[in-house]
């Protein structure tokens, strides 16, 4: 292939063709297909019936518990991950902890899905290590106390295993970006540590924190494998309901599936829109 002649400049977009084609075929059009399908009536034409079908108690309950689990795991993941990241960056822990911790975070943030469910079953399931240990050594039966791995808190606790490391991975560079001079300048101007964090550090970190919260939320909201392997279909969170729909709907009306999927996009979309909006407010001072 020869180098392009000078006039080829206007044809530069041709180089984007493979990527554009790929993105259209396997990302954008399938997603749009779902969105359009949610509003298309049986014989063609526009309808709100499918979306209205979402407003039944069982589906609303599924959305509600999904959103609550995602919010809880995203929020706790943010807070705990932030605390750990702080302890290795500005908390004054020895430097050798940092490398292994970040590597481990890389591993754990990708250790999701089915194996993670197994790990938690082996730990906090009815025969799990911790369950048995607490029962035999301390006489505490956590299941008798109302704990259940196949529940809101059980799933949240499991999700945290990949949410916290993801937060650590994202927020550590941001904490490194806090320059020592800012803290020192604030200090020498008479600010207490709390005043420095409140007036300088947090506002600077805000965009990153919000973005990570939105990402963690979407991450938990779309997760199927862990929940499915953990609970089968006994816990009706949205992705599992959709999963069951897709598996069983071949001959049924697929439109409730469209509507469910559309609902999922709307929820993660709202999460991200909220993030973009907050970010534009928080980021006025960035180039």
């Amino acid at each position, binding site marked *: 292939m020869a180098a392009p002649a000078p006039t080829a400049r206007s044809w530069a977009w041709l180089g984007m063709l493979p990527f554009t084609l790929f993105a259209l075929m396997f990302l954008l059009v399938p997603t749009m297909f779902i969105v359009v399908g949610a509003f298309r009536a049986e014989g063609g034409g526009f309808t709100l019936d499918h979306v209205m079908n979402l407003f039944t108690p069982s589906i609303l309950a599924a959305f509600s518990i999904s959103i609550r689990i995602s919010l809880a795991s995203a929020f706790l993941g943010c807070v705990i991950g932030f605390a750990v990241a702080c302890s290795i960056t500005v908390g004054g822990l020895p430097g050798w902890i940092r490398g292994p911790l970040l590597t481990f975070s890389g591993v754990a943030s990708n250790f999701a899905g089915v194996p993670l469910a197994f790990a938690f079953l082996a730990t906090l399931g009815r025969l799990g290590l911790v369950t048995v240990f607490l029962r035999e050594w301390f006489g505490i039966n956590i299941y008798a106390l109302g704990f259940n791995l196949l529940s809101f808190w059980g799933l949240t606790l499991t999700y945290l295993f990949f949410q916290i490391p993801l937060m650590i991975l994202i927020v550590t560079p941001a904490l490194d970006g806090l*320059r020592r*001079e*800012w803290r*020192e*300048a*604030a*200090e*020498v*101007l*008479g*600010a*207490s540590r709390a*005043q420095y964090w409140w*007036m*300088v550090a947090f*506002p*600077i970190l805000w965009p990153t924190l919000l973005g990570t919260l939105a990402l963690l939320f979407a991450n938990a909201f779309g997760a199927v494998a862990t929940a499915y392997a953990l609970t089968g279909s006994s816990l009706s969170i949205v992705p599992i309901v959709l999963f069951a729909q897709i598996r069983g709907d071949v001959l049924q009306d697929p439109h409730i599936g469209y509507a469910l999927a559309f609902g999922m996009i709307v929820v993660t979309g709202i999460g991200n829109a909220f993030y973009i909006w907050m970010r534009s407010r928080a980021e*006025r*001072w*960035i*180039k």
Partner: protein
Amino acid sequence: MAFLDITRLEKFYGTTHVVKDFNLAVEKGEFISFLGPSGCGKTTTLRMVAGFETPSSGSIRIDGRDVVNLRPNQRNIGMVFQAYALFPNLTVAQNIGFGLKVAGRPRAEIDERVREMLGIIHLPELGGRFPFQLSGGQQQRVALARALAIRPKLLLLDEPLSALDAKIRVSLRQEIRAIQKKLGITTIYVTHDQEEALSMSDRIVVMNAGVAEQVGDPFTIYNRPATRFVAGFVGTLNALDAIVTDPATGSITLDGQPIRLNRPIDAAAGASIGLALRPETLALGPRPETDGSLRGTVRDVQFLGSVLRVRVALDGQVVALDSFNTAALRPPAVGDAVEVSFATADVLVSDG
């Protein structure tokens, strides 16, 4: 008692001795520079005054009060950092008002002080901008205003100009000095740039390897350096070796050429001594008013704009000399045999 009194200050990092027996008394309103190469301990000393480092031993008294055990936010000090360190999320006005705000001062007082400070740094229009919208020089002026807004007892500047362009550096150092004089604030200025230190300071502390080698006004530091390090670090210098022939009259030979200094030298005949000569004290060609001269050949000529730097080879050693550039005079050519003249009073003698 002086306004700022540093006595017997020592600092160790592990086993590394970074500041050794540092003593300094600064009067109110004085402008002091710490000058030295990187790693000489000047910044560490400044940070101990600010409270970011704890001295291993010794005392620091500001206005009669020992501050060693006070946290930085209790010392009432203004500080300007090398890399501006403006808070990027706050506007210029909010940056300047930060110190007053954390002190819980009323809004009106903060606004008033911010306006006053913006006037002092000649940026009255820029209060609403964010730091990224300012040039480096403007940012550093805002940083200065922020440090001064809390009316500190002491102003510390840690290489504030080293991140800026050469031109801005010169204009800003005049501005800093003018503001300092106007407010009469006691100031310590850390720099590795001798030109800055010489042009701004009331007194200079030249530091090397944790030791204050010499403390004195710029004139003394430059013309009467106490140690070979000071002589070499401040200004350019010809360092030459000579042999003593008669210590009583100050007769020596330099690459075989006799020179008579007309003052006694503290060395035995036949001993080797070090001489130091500033390039600007040497002149090309014979001069009636000077009493020393050397002969050599021109090794090379550097044209530096207003100044010509000519390097003349003696028998083995080389001396550099500066002369002002004048359009009427052609510079010497390489290989020319020339005579270099100087006043023997300008020759600095150090032993060995």
